[in-house]
C-alpha cells in the first residue's frame, strides 16, 4: 500500500515554503534599505506595481505570469527612477518624493482597473493587498514521492520564482558583501578609489524590486512592506556589526513567515475556530517581533541617573 500524499504536502508545503523564502529574501534585502534610511522605497515599489499589472494585462490580454511580472517590474523600476529624479533634480525631500510617487502610481492603477475593464477579470484589489497564498497548492500525484521529477515539475510557478530570487539575493549579498559594506558606508571614498557605488546601489535596488514583484502575487503588498522593514528594524536594535545585523534580519523574517503561517493555519482554528488570512498573520508576526524587540531594548537600557 502506498500512502496518499498528506494534506500537509498538498495544501501547506508550497505556501509555507513560499512565505518563508519570500520573508527571508525580503528581510535580507530590506536590511540594506533600512541601513540607507530608505525603508519607504519598498512601500513605494509595492504600491507602484498596480498600474504595471493593469497595463501589462491590457496590452497582452492575459494574466500569464511572464507579462504580469514584466509589467510589475517595469512599474516598480519606473517608481524608483521617478523618486531618484525628483530627489536629485527637483530637490524634493526624499520621503516626500517617495510619498508622491507611490500614491500617484497607486491611484493611477486604481483608475486603470476601473476604466479598462480589468476589474472583471479578477484583478481585484483584495488580491493586490493580501495576495493569494492559499492558491499555491501543490497538485502532487497520489502515491508519488515529493522528490520525484514529476512531483517537482508540479510545484507552483510563484514558488520557483521565489526560490530563484532567494538564491540570487543570497549569492549577491555573499559575494558583494565587502562592496556593499564599503560603498554604502563611504560613498565618496569608494568612488574616488574607482569603485562604482552608484552601480552597487542600483544593482541592490534592482534585486529588491524584482523580489518585491516576485513576492507580490503570493503575498500581497502589505506583507511585502512589513517584511522589508520590520525584521531589519528589530535586528538593528539587537546587533552591533553588519554581519550579525543582516543575518539576524533574514532569520527574523523567515521566523515571522513560519510563525505567522503556522498561526493562521493551525493556531487560529483552535483559538478562534477558523483559519485566517495567512498574509495578514505573517505581517502581524513581523510587527510583533519588532514590538517585542523594541520593548526589550527600552527595558534593558540603563536609566540615566542625575548624579551620573
Amino acid at each position: 500500500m502506498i500512502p496518499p500524499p498528506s494534506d500537509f504536502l498538498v495544501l501547506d508545503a508550497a505556501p509555507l515554503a513560499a512565505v518563508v523564502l519570500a520573508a527571508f529574501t525580503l528581510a535580507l534585502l530590506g536590511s540594506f534599505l533600512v541601513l540607507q534610511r530608505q525603508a519607504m522605497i519598498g512601500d513605494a515599489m509595492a504600491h507602484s506595481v498596480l498600474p504595471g499589472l493593469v497595463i501589462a494585462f491590457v496590452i497582452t490580454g492575459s494574466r500569464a505570469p511572464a507579462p504580469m511580472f514584466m509589467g510589475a517590474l517595469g512599474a516598480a523600476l519606473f517608481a524608483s527612477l521617478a523618486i531618484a529624479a525628483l530627489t536629485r533634480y527637483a530637490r524634493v525631500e526624499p520621503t516626500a518624493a517617495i510619498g508622491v510617487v507611490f500614491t500617484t502610481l497607486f491611484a493611477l492603477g486604481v483608475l486603470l482597473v476601473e476604466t479598462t475593464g480589468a476589474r472583471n477579470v479578477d484583478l481585484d484589489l483584495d488580491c493586490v493587498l493580501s495576495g493569494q497564498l492559499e492558491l499555491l497548492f501543490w497538485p502532487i500525484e497520489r502515491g508519488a514521492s515529493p522528490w520525484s521529477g514529476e512531483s517537482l515539475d508540479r510545484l507552483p510557478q510563484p514558488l520557483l520564482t521565489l526560490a530563484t530570487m532567494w538564491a540570487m539575493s543570497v549569492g549577491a549579498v555573499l559575494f558583494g558583501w565587502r562592496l556593499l559594506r564599503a560603498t554604502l558606508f563611504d560613498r565618496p571614498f569608494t568612488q574616488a578609489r574607482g569603485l562604482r557605488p552608484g552601480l552597487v546601489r542600483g544593482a541592490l535596488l534592482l534585486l529588491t524590486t524584482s523580489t518585491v514583484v516576485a513576492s507580490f502575487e503570493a503575498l500581497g503588498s502589505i506583507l511585502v512592506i512589513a517584511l522589508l522593514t520590520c525584521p531589519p528594524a528589530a535586528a538593528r536594535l539587537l546587533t552591533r556589526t553588519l554581519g550579525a545585523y543582516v543575518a539576524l534580519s533574514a532569520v527574523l523574517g523567515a521566523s515571522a513567515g513560519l510563525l505567522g503561517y503556522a498561526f493562521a493555519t493551525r493556531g487560529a482554528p483552535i483559538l478562534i475556530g477558523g483559519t485566517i488570512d495567512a498574509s495578514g498573520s505573517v505581517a502581524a508576526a513581523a510587527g510583533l517581533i519588532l514590538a517585542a524587540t523594541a520593548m526589550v531594548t527600552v527595558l534593558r537600557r540603563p536609566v540615566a541617573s542625575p548624579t551620573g
Partner: protein
Amino acid sequence: MIARSNQAEPFAVENLVVAYRAEPVLWNVTWSARAGAMSAIVGPNGAGKSTLLNAAVGLVPIVSGRATFWGETFKDARHRIAYVPQRESIDWDFPITAAQVVEMGITHGAAWLVPDFLPRWSRRLLGKGTARAESKTHGALERVGMADFARRPIGELSGGQQQRVFLARALAQEAELYLLDEPFAGVDVATEEILTSELRALARAGKTVVAVHHDLEDVADRFDDVAVLHRELVASGPAKATLTEATIVRAFRQPRAPLALDSTAHG
C-alpha cells in the same frame, strides 16, 4: 597634451571652473601643491575649498579647466592617491568596525568579492594576501593609536577617534599624495597631535599632503604652504608669508559680488 612626467607637480589645477547648477563655486582657479610639502587650502565657508578636492577626485563634475596629478588625469593616477572625505558626508551610525574601515583602503581587485565573515583558513584559500592585509590594517591602526579599537563599531568611537581611523585608512593605502577634507574639524587635542605628527612624517618621507583647513590661527604652525580660496584663488605660497592681514581681509571680510556664468564666453 598632458605631459607624462614624474617631475610634474603631484597635484595641480589649471583654470578650474566648477558650478552647482548655474552658480559657480570655483572660478578659474590655478594652483599646484609643492611635492613633499604640507599645503592647506583655507577660505571662508562656501569658498569652494571642499569642492576643489571633490572636483579633483572626480566626485563633482568639472565645468572647464583640469586637475592633474604628476601630469596625469585622476583616473590614471588614483592608485597613488589617498583621499579622506569630509566627516559630514559619512553616516557614522553604519555598523562597520574600525578594522573594516581601514581594509577599504587596501582591498584590491578580486579581493572585494571574497566575503570576510568566512573563517580565516577559507579566506586564505580563496584570496592571497589575507594575512598581509591584516597586518597592514593593524599597523595603520597602531600608528594612530587605535589598535585596541580595531573590532569596535565606528559609531561607538568619539569624533576624534573616527577621524584617526580615517587617517589610518589613508596611511594603509601607502599613497604618494594625501588629499584630506577638513581632517581637523571637531577633533580632540590628542587626535590633533597624532594627525599633525603623522602628516608631518608623511611629508618628511617625501609624500605630498593637501588638506582643506578651517582654522586660520594654526595654519602656519601645521602647514608649509597655503592656498587662500574664495571662489577664486586669493593668494598662495609659504604659509607665514602668505597669510598677511591684507590677504585675510581680502578673502574673509570683503563681500564679493556673486559671479554670473553668462559673463564668460563659453567654448
